[in-house]
């Protein structure tokens, strides 16, 4: 009679139930609450786009971007973390603490856009890692240009272009004249 041994052993032992706040140790690579490292975030909005449950909302403004996250809606699927191009997102390795009201654990981050070194207006944030992926060889001139706001960058490109074209035209004219 296996069952008799089983129930008498259960009876003698302490209950297996965990009493709050005691908890199971979470498994390795447990997918918990999503965190945003704002220093790496480039406010691209991909996380907002891929989050099926609408837990992440990214709203862009002129000089900053509001990144908000509600764990009460999150299904902890990890899609946002997988697809974040800047590797800004990560997930806690443990369960979220207990909370009383939906929205208690909601996080809101503000990603301030850096000022353009030329005109002082807000420029898009950039991420070193992404730069490395896109261009494996980064010249000092390129690094400087990436910090500019869009307008200044366009203007810089224009100048370079006209200078380059002008230079070429001059050379051609000179060659003709010769």
């Amino acid at each position, binding site marked *: 009679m296996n069952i008799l041994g089983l*129930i008498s052993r*259960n009876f003698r032992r302490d209950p297996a139930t965990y009493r709050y706040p005691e908890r199971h140790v979470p498994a390795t690579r447990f997918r918990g609450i999503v965190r945003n490292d704002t220093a790496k975030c480039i406010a691209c909005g991909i996380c907002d786009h891929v989050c099926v449950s609408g837990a992440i909302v990214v709203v862009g403004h002129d000089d900053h971007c509001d990144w908000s996250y509600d764990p009460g809606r999150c299904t902890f699927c990890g899609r946002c973390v997988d697809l974040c191009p800047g590797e800004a997102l990560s997930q806690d390795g443990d369960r979220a603490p207990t909370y009383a009201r939906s929205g208690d654990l909601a996080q809101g981050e503000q990603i301030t856009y850096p000022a353009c070194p030329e005109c002082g207006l807000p420029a898009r944030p950039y991420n070193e890692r992404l730069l490395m992926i896109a261009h494996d060889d980064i010249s000092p001139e390129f690094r400087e240009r990436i910090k500019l706001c869009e307008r200044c960058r366009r203007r810089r490109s224009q100048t370079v272009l006209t200078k380059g074209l002008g230079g070429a035209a001059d050379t051609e004219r000179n060659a003709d004249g010769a």
Partner: protein
Amino acid sequence: MTVGRALFQLLVFPGLLYAVPVAWLMLWMERKLTARLQGRIGPPFYQPFFDFVKLLAKRPLPRPPLQALAMSALPVLAVAGTLGALALLPVFPHSGGFTGDLVLLVALLEIPPLCAVLAGFVSRSIYGELGATREAVLSIAYSLPFLAALVALAAAANSLSLSVISQQAMWQVRLPALLALALCLPVKLRVNPFSVANAEQEIYAGATTEFEGPRLALWELAHGLEWVALTGLWAVLAFPAANAAWPLRAVVFVAISLALVLVLAAVAAATARLKLAQAARVYWLWGSALGVLAMVVAVVWP
């Protein structure tokens, strides 16, 4: 039995005042022991009381008038029937009773299962109907040994009065009869291995699935009272010492009832649910064998 005496038995002991707290205590004991045997913590002892109060405080669902009436009346009837049965238990042998109270007791004890069957059909839920059907089949199955045991006891004591039976039935009859009655307890209380009528993993709560709020609270109370009444009946029949002083009788009555609850809970925790046909076969075969044995002994013993 004088009116005062009858009222005392109905309202104080072993009736309302005793039975309701003990019903909750027994429900708790059953849940707690089952939990411990399964390695869980189990509820605190006031849990059945809290469950009852919480259910009472809920607003009942709006239903068509006739259905609402039936669904409210049936649990009330079940509670009333069980309380009546409790009042008839001859805990104190000289407390009166009357000739034929055995018949009344059997009738009153049959009210809750009957109400449960009706409740299952009245609630118009497929699970309720399944539970009610199973309940009906089982009640046919266990009625044979249950009634045979009681008839054998009555024949042995040559009386239809409960107090006479509890005092005078001889042990040769009493033993198989008590065994047959004990076999009937789990199915009447719907616990394992004969819990097919409210098999929660397949048909939710069986006949009471659609019940909610105060109506469900009354069912829970009726269920608890059934525990008190049935274990009490067994205790009364198992302890015939006529000369014992009344406090001793009361204490032994309570002790046997509670011990029986523990035994039933342990059996429930150690067994798995039998299928309807298997459960019915146990009663038709082994239950009836015990009942018939008791009856034969009662008739042929000099």
